[in-house]
């Protein structure tokens, strides 16, 4: 298949590429990667291009493998509640009728492959889990061009290693994802959102009250603008009768009211080109983290302990990243700078401390011994 010379737009976090190839099938992708390996080319995979500035810039870059031709739903077995989708398919284009792939996408235009590779998630991860939980099978092309599959098309399956989990969140450092099989969920007929805005000191009590009420929320989100009060928003989904009852109970417990999804729902709190962090915490420490984030503001899944913060000014970024990281670690979690302008990326530790790094390096060395794939983009310089 043909490769194209790169244009000025074909760069990754400021590093220009020399070529772009857009395979339309797993076989074509294998051909491209065999050739790239033979010529010792450094490769970065590009889907919708919504997260190309995540992670560190590649140490070197020759070839962008673009997945925009690797699209479409290969199979939707409605009776079995599964689908097989090509990696370049935008999440927003998936339509399974009365069923859904329950993976929220915070970035419009993101593809399946990119969302899996970067392990993005949104509010409803609380009920449905994340990409790793929904993915039941994966087809990848290794950096040497070898095509490999793991899992399958049935939800229940323990045959062999689960490479899908390994590739989820691997940020394109282990190979190219070409197809994903997912379990689907029915689209619930009804939903309701109950919100309440309180001073930061009152968040802990509200979250505890929601947790103790047996209403099984699909999402428990918080949003705190810089210096502001905290809005808690709880989503319930189900039958019309069930949702009515659950929402009424939540209104009582929260002292809040039912309404539409808030405008900030499921969106990252930073602007394009800004500095954005992902902060995690043990559930009981979420209120502490929210309380500590007065200066930057914070938003995200209080129901699972996965939150996001934005740092507006590049000058303040090193100090604020340091402080938020200290708070996240105190809360039993981590802080990762997902996206940042070049000057911030150079000034901070993007990934922070990572346990098990030695084993991770060994995994990378096995899958990509020549370090051709997204070199330097991931944790510990992987």
């Amino acid at each position: 298949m043909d490769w194209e010379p790169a244009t000025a737009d074909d760069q990754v976090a400021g590093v220009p590429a020399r070529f772009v190839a857009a395979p339309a099938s797993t076989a074509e992708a294998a051909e491209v990667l065999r050739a790239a390996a033979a010529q010792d080319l450094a490769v970065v995979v590009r889907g919708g291009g919504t997260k190309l500035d995540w992670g560190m810039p590649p140490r070197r870059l020759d070839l962008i493998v673009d997945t925009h031709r690797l699209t479409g739903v290969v199979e939707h077995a409605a009776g079995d509640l599964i689908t097989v989708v090509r990696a370049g398919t935008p999440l927003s284009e998936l339509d399974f009728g009365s069923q859904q792939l329950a993976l929220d996408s915070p970035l419009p235009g993101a593809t399946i492959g990119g969302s899996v590779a970067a392990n993005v998630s949104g509010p409803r991860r609380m009920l449905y889990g994340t990409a790793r939980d929904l993915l039941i099978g994966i087809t990848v092309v290794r950096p040497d061009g070898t095509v490999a599959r793991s899992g399958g098309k049935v939800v229940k399956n323990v045959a062999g290693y689960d490479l899908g989990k390994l590739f989820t969140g691997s940020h394109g450092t282990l190979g190219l994802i070409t197809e994903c099989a997912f379990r689907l969920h029915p689209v619930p007929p009804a939903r309701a959102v109950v919100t309440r805005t309180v001073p930061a000191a009152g968040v802990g009590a509200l979250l505890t009250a929601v947790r103790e009420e047996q209403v099984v929320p699909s999402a428990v989100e918080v949003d705190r603008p810089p210096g502001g009060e905290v809005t808690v928003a709880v989503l319930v989904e189900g039958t019309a009768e069930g949702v009515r009852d659950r929402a009424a109970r939540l209104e009582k417990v929260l002292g809040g009211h039912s309404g539409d999804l808030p405008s900030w729902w499921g969106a990252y709190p930073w602007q394009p080109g800004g500095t954005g962090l992902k902060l995690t915490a043990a559930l009981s420490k979420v209120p502490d983290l929210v309380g500590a984030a007065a200066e930057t503001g914070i938003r995200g899944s209080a129901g699972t302990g996965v939150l996001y913060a934005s740092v507006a000014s590049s000058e303040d970024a090193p100090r604020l990243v340091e402080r938020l990281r200290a708070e996240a670690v105190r809360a039993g979690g981590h802080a990762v700078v997902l996206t940042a302008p070049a000057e911030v990326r150079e000034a901070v530790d993007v990934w922070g401390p990572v346990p098990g790094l030695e084993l991770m390096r060994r995994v990378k060395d096995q899958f990509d011994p020549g370090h051709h794939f997204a070199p330097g983009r991931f944790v510990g310089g992987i």
Partner: protein
Amino acid sequence: MTSLEELAAALRAALGADRVVSDRLELRTYECDGLAHYKVTPGLVVLPRDAAECARTVSECVAAGVPFVARGSGTGLSGGALPHADGVLIVTAKMRDILEVSPADERAVVQPGVINLQVTRAASPHGYYYAPDPSSQQICSIGGNVAENSGGAHCLKYGFTTNHVLGAEIVTPDGDLVELGGRAPDTPGYDLLGAFVGSEGTLGIATRVTVRLTRLPESVRTLLAAFATTDAAGAATSAIIAAGVVPAAIEMMDALAIEAAEAAVACGYPPGAGAVLIVELDGPAAEVAAQFAQVTALCEANGATELRIAADDAERALFWKGRKSAFAAVGRISPDYIVQDGVIPRTALPEVLHRIGEVASAHGVRVANVFHAGDGNLHPLVLFDGAADGEAERAEEVSGAIIDLCIEYGGSITGEHGVGTDKAKYMPRMFSDDDLTTMQLLRCAFDPAGLANPGKIFPTPRLCGEVPRRHSAADAPAGAEIF
């Protein structure tokens, strides 16, 4: 001294004599797991009391170049914990402490030998439970569950062990203690925990496990529906799924399985039924009430001959007793049996059941079917009399043919029992050489010497440390040369 004797001496010196078993008779009590027709007496058994002792045991094995196999409660059904005659069996039975139960974090931290059901018992006073519930949950260990990625009747709605394990401290096959995952979700870096869960002891040994606790459902309602045929029960299952209901469980048993369960535990299922379904819904009371009415109507519309609704916990337990004791129960109607575990797309259920029936009668063998109908996980029980000439072989053929059917219909050779020793030979039917080689790259990263549970999962071990094939310039297409 042989190398094993030297190793035994080193381990006694390091850990204390009471941790090491080398008496021949005692060793034989560990010769198999729940799949009793594979038997190997281990060279040595070690019972570490904590992570440090477990790590030391592995380090000594590595130094001596001796393979090691981890074992929890020994309830596995694929020979995953089958020992090595020249190796060490590391038994986690003495590591049974629940280290922490934190309802506020919805987490529990346990040692690997802790019994599955004990986690739920410890959590339930706080209003929480541990969701994965394999049928052996009264005796199986969390460490074994992690190794096998165990499922259970309720994983249709709640997922498997891998969806409920947030962190683990493991002993790597090098003998190092490493933390994977943690108390908070989405630890940065590769999801090595996700790769570790379900790796059947080939990537190391879990010494401490952090699990998710799930809030107890407000309401649980259970329905027992009898049907004339498995086809009708299958149609009812399809209708429930098509209606957008995700029950906590949908279990099916056929006439022969019902007969066995009646004989064993007198569960009082409707007499003469060709199939029964157990459908359980749980969640907020108003939600369960609405969906339960829907499920009941769908069972009736699909020809249910009798519907029973559990009036209380005691009756619910009775419904489940027949199902959960089904494997052992067939012992009442057959001297020997093979428990098979395969998966098919749920919609293929009626067709595959007919084909299983055809294969069985062609071989003159009876098959009782018990399965998780909601997710297409079949547990056919192939009945035979080992004393009768050729019956064991015929049963083995039928069992293998069922696995072939699962592959033919796009399913899996195992839904929850694991590959272990028993199914390594089927792996090449489901996966290509490249698939299996790629999986073993992970193995090589964790265990380059191949000492952790060797011979399991993969029929052909890959030698690690091979120099990757260098591609010649001639492999490159002309197009790539232009720019």
